[in-house]
């Protein structure tokens, strides 16, 4: 210990200062160091106090730190106690932060004679605070969705920034639990990173491979002697690594996710502060990796859901609690029938006809109570073709509804095709058609009835004459009988058509069928102002068939023709029925001069639910075709050259 020039303190004070763990100095008024305690020698990495004595204290500082030191000295010189925190390297070049207090010391006469400097090494404290701030920054990155690569790189940099001469690396364990995958090692040579990528973990697989294999920290103080590095020794030496400490990165479920390693160019063992730091780094890395894995799992699940969505042909609609369309999914947008902006943001009750909206409202109410999906069927008629749907309605997302809608038109059509083969439907169709004709049929009946009544009244008058004209009276009675028969025939035709059953084939003259139907529809044709022309050969057209069913076919064709002509001029409304024999078939053609049929629909008109009539069920032609086929015949539609369409049936000639 160098003797003091003029110790300004008492014996006890000197001991206190000597015993202090802070660096204590005395400066003269020129700023030169005149005293340095033992702790100071050690803290500044000096050999003895002579290294510093007589030198300028301010010269130890640099830049802004020197400015802070000068300001503190100037304040002390005018009698004020001053303090600051500053950064200054030791004689060995170690970076240290100091908390410095400068106090003026007066002599016996009260003048300021010296300055007392007490500097406390706060490097550790600063580093801890800095490291904590770094951790927060990393956690924030994770929370704000930064990429895993960016997060892990930041972790590596953070640890590297807080330890001298050390390089960090994070490697990940592959999903297979066997192989190393790249994590982040921005400071390690790329050749080294590439060399260990894909290497298997194991009991002697370097520090990282072994740490992940064992699930615990592996401290290798010298790779040249540790057996763990046997297989990788040459690689490590080639890149100048001598010590490598690795800590496994564990998930919250204690599954190994990867490892955090620190590399040194010299053989060495960690100090407790370094182990603390590596634990924290491994922890944060674990959080980041788990977070990313969870995100990835979510993304995969969403992708899977989207793939499922793409694969199913159903339509899906999300509706709000009050039935407003919020979103939809359609693999084929044309299956929506209307563009999305026609329904999105609108209530289903505005968009769908009441006959459909009602059952949907019921289904929603039902699923609210049961919590189970409710199934409904409905149909819509966007154009000429009726479409059938089945919908499942279920709650989703709390108070919303999910409606999954499937087009079941094909299934319905198949069911209907089967039903058409049955006589029930043919009968139903006949009854429906006759219902449409009821006004005309009533007129058809009322004519002969009126004739009967008037003839009877005339007969009474004739009887009162003298002499009674017996010849005329006979004529009147003949007419009454004829008109009664006429009315009876109408009723008979009606009864036949209204009767169930059918399917009994008998020898027929197709001309009789034509005449029957034209008689039945006479009034209807008159009311619709349709003129009828017939080209019927005088000879019989023998077929084997069901009279009622064949009448039904012609009835459908005649009424369709009338409907088709309802929009054309009265003068143009001409219906032509032509029969004949051709190539062993009896043919019957019904031609109109109406609007015709779109060329691409000439075959489709015979499908169920395809209709060009305002009130049609779309079953008439389907049933007609079914009947003709059952008779071994054919039916076809074509457009006339000038206007309108012609439907032609061909039935096998009986005895041919």
């Amino acid at each position, binding site marked *: 210990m160098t003797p003091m020039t003029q110790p300004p303190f008492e014996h006890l004070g000197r001991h206190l200062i000597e015993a202090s763990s802070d660096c204590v100095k005395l400066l003269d008024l020129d700023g030169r160091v005149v005293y340095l305690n033992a702790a100071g020698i050690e803290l500044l990495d000096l050999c003895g106090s002579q290294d510093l004595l007589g030198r300028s204290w301010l010269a130890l500082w640099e830049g802004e730190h020197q400015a802070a030191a000068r300001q503190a000295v100037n304040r002390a010189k005018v009698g004020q106690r001053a303090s600051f925190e500053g950064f200054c390297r030791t004689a060995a070049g170690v970076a240290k932060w100091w908390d410095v207090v400068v106090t003026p010391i007066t002599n016996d006469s009260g003048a300021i004679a010296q300055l007392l400097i007490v500097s406390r090494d706060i490097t550790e404290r600063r580093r801890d605070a800095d490291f904590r701030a770094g951790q927060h920054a990393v956690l924030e990155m994770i929370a704000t969705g930064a990429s895993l690569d960016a997060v892990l790189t930041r972790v590596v940099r953070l640890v590297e920034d807080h330890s001298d001469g050390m390089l960090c690396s994070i490697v990940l364990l592959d999903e297979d639990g066997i192989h190393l995958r790249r994590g982040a090692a921005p400071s390690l040579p790329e050749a080294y990173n590439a060399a260990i990528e894909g290497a298997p973990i194991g009991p002697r697989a370097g520090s990282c491979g072994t740490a992940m294999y064992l699930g615990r920290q592996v401290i290798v103080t010298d790779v040249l002697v540790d057996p763990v590095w046997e297989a990788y020794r040459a690689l490590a030496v080639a890149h100048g690594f001598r010590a490598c400490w690795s800590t496994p990165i564990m998930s919250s479920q204690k599954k190994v996710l990867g490892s955090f390693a620190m590399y040194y160019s010299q053989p060495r063992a960690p100090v407790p502060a370094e182990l603390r730091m590596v634990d924290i780094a491994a922890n944060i890395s674990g959080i980041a990796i788990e977070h990313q894995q969870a995100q990835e799992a979510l993304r995969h699940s969403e992708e899977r859901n989207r793939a499922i969505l793409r694969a199913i042909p159903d339509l899906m609609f999300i509706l709000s609690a009050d039935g407003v369309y919020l979103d939809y999914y359609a693999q084929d947008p044309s299956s929506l029938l209307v563009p999305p902006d026609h329904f999105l943001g609108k209530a289903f009750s505005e968009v769908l006809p009441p006959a459909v909206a009602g059952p949907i409202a019921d289904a929603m109410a039902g699923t609210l109570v049961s919590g189970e999906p409710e199934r409904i069927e409905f149909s819509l008629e966007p154009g000429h073709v009726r479409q059938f749907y089945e919908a499942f309605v279920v709650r989703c997302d709390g108070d919303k509804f999910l409606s999954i809608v499937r087009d079941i038109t094909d299934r319905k059509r198949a069911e209907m095709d089967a039903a058409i083969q049955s006589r029930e439907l043919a009968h139903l169709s006949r009854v429906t058609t006759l219902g449409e004709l009821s006004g005309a049929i009533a007129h058809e009946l009322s*004519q*002969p009835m*009126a*004739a*009967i009544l*008037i*003839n009877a*009244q*005339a007969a009474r*008058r*004739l009887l009162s*004459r003298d002499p009674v004209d017996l010849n*005329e009276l006979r004529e*009147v009675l003949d*007419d009454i009988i*004829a*008109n009664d028969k*006429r009315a009876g025939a109408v009723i008979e035709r009606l009864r036949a058509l209204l009767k169930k059953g059918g399917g009994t084939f008998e020898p027929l003259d197709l001309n009789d069928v034509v005449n029957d139907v034209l008689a039945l529809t006479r009034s209807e044709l*008159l009311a619709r102002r349709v003129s009828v022309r017939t080209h019927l050969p005088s000879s019989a057209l023998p077929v084997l068939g069901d009279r009622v069913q064949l009448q039904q076919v012609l009835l459908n064709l005649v009424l369709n023709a009338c409907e088709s002509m309802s929009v054309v001029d009265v003068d143009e409304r001409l219906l032509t029925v032509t029969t004949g024999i051709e190539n062993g078939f009896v043919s019957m053609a019904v031609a109109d001069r109406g609007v015709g049929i779109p060329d691409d629909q000439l075959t489709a008109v015979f499908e169920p639910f395809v209709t060009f009539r305002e009130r049609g069920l779309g079953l008439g032609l389907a049933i007609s075709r079914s009947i003709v086929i059952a008779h071994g015949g054919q039916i076809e539609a074509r457009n006339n050259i000038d206007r309108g369409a012609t439907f032609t049936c061909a039935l096998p000639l009986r005895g041919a």
Partner: protein
Amino acid sequence: MKLAVVDDDADVRTAINRLLRALGHEVSLFASAEEFTVARR
């Protein structure tokens, strides 16, 4: 009295003709309005 009867149904026309004649009227018969207007010219 001279009466014109227009009805599209022949049976009804015949019956009306018979009754009106029995009542002592002179009757001419027409099957349609067109037929009637043509005959009137």
